């Protein structure tokens, strides 16, 4: 996959999946597109359909209702597809880990390649995370 990954790294198209977040990581992701941070200058673009995406940005704790839908979305993505978990929620469950409605094992639903922790992570932090992903793809 090395050859393909290098082509992918030149212009990453991302799709945003919100799986029961508190909405905060999501507005910070949208913030990346607006004039202050303007991610499109790096060739990173938010796309409207999962079938165009190279990277999934997931945020939230995956409740039991949304979990199967996220799995469906991941299956529809063209492979290779990399998954980035934004925020503390996909990494550890944040303060919701005692809830009755949380998916117990996120790894079974979707394999997450990169975590960007923070509640919410700052946009600079997210850019740094994506740059790390690009470095790995180029290696």
């Amino acid at each position, binding site marked *: 996959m090395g050859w393909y990954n290098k082509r992918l790294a030149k212009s990453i198209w991302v799709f*945003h*999946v*919100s799986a*029961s*977040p*508190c*909405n*905060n*990581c*999501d*507005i*910070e*992701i*949208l*913030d990346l597109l*607006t*004039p*202050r941070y303007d991610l499109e200058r790096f060739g990173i673009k938010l796309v*409207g*359909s999962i079938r165009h995406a190279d990277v999934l940005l997931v945020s*939230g*704790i995956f*409740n039991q*209702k*949304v979990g199967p*839908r996220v799995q469906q979305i991941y299956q529809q993505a063209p492979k290779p597809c990399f998954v980035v978990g934004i925020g503390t929620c996909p990494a550890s469950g*944040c*303060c*919701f880990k*005692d*809830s*009755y*409605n*949380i998916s117990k094992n996120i790894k079974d639903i979707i394999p997450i390649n990169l975590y960007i922790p923070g*509640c*919410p992570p*700052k946009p600079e932090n997210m850019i740094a995370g994506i740059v790390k992903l690009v470095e790995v793809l180029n290696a």
Partner: protein
Amino acid sequence: MSMVNNIPVGPFHPLLEEAEYFNIVVDGETVVDIDMDIGWMHRGHEFISEQKSFTQSIYLVERICGICSTSHPIACVHAFEDVDNIEIPERAAYIRSLVGELERIHSHLLWFGLAGHFIGYDTVWMWAWKYREPILQMFEIISGNRNHYGMMRIGGVAKDVDPARIPEMMKILDMVDDKMNMIIKVAKDDPVLRSRLKGVGVLTHKDAVELCAVGPTARASGVNTDVRQDEPNDAYGWVKFDVPVLPNGDVYDKFVVRALEIIESTKICRQCLEKLATVKGPILNNVKHISAGEGLGRYEAPRGEVFHFIKTDGTNRPIRHKVRAPSFNNIPTYVASCKGIPLADALITLASVDPCYCCTERSLKVVDINRDPFQIDLLKLSREKTQQIRSKIHE
């Protein structure tokens, strides 16, 4: 021949107890009925909060919604303080109101951007979000974080405002005022925006009262309800401000109400900052114990009244913590305001309640009930309509 189709919209949508999946029933192009399936973002806050101590539960309610992430803590601490009638220091009251009003500005600017995006005006989106950044910078100056400020405590606030940085914040408020006046002028003058928003998705006064709508949604329909004037706690009794109320109930009025509210909010922020430069004193009363009883707290969030109810039994945990977010009351008004309007207008009507639409508009699509290859992008539909009006006007 009339043919009734079901259109599933969703299901991806963020927010606690919020609607994400709409089943729109259409006859041709006209919306007949809307059914909502919610619970995709249900995380069980009330259940978790009963296992946490009071201080932890303030941290928890902050994570209900990232956009009104200080309204819930304010309502929550009001509820705790209501049990024992705890007083807060004067300086703390001003800081609370300052943070609350700044949040209103950032939330309304966010909504402007997204509303512009929905009707195909991406310039409005980029503008509004550009002017929102300095507000987030102010939050960083005050609390150290862009969102989720962690400012509220029972009996006061956690962090003080540095008086040396007040002139810097005043400058930012001046800039926001300037730009808001510009945006209001654009909205009033622009013929495309007027024809897209005026008379669309009307929520009548009667419906707004019967469905118990709150916040800008109700105020645009002529219902004069605002927690800040009905029950002026914190600094709201000491500052001067108006509550804009408009009679028509369409999307345009909701737009204007929010724009006017931003200007009122900057006024309140300025008065708070002026006071913070002179008023000295502590920012936190030491509260050691909360006795058994019932407490009821509310606060006017950007979207309406946030309601928290606490029942305590003398230990350090609540036995019941009820949370009611404003959108929970506002979303049932969709059915009343969407009936009989064209499908292309449905999206902006749904968005006009401001139910945190940030990330989902791209998963909206129209599918026939029989799974025909009939698929239309709602967003595209809405944008095409704007494009048509624009070209008609330019001719």
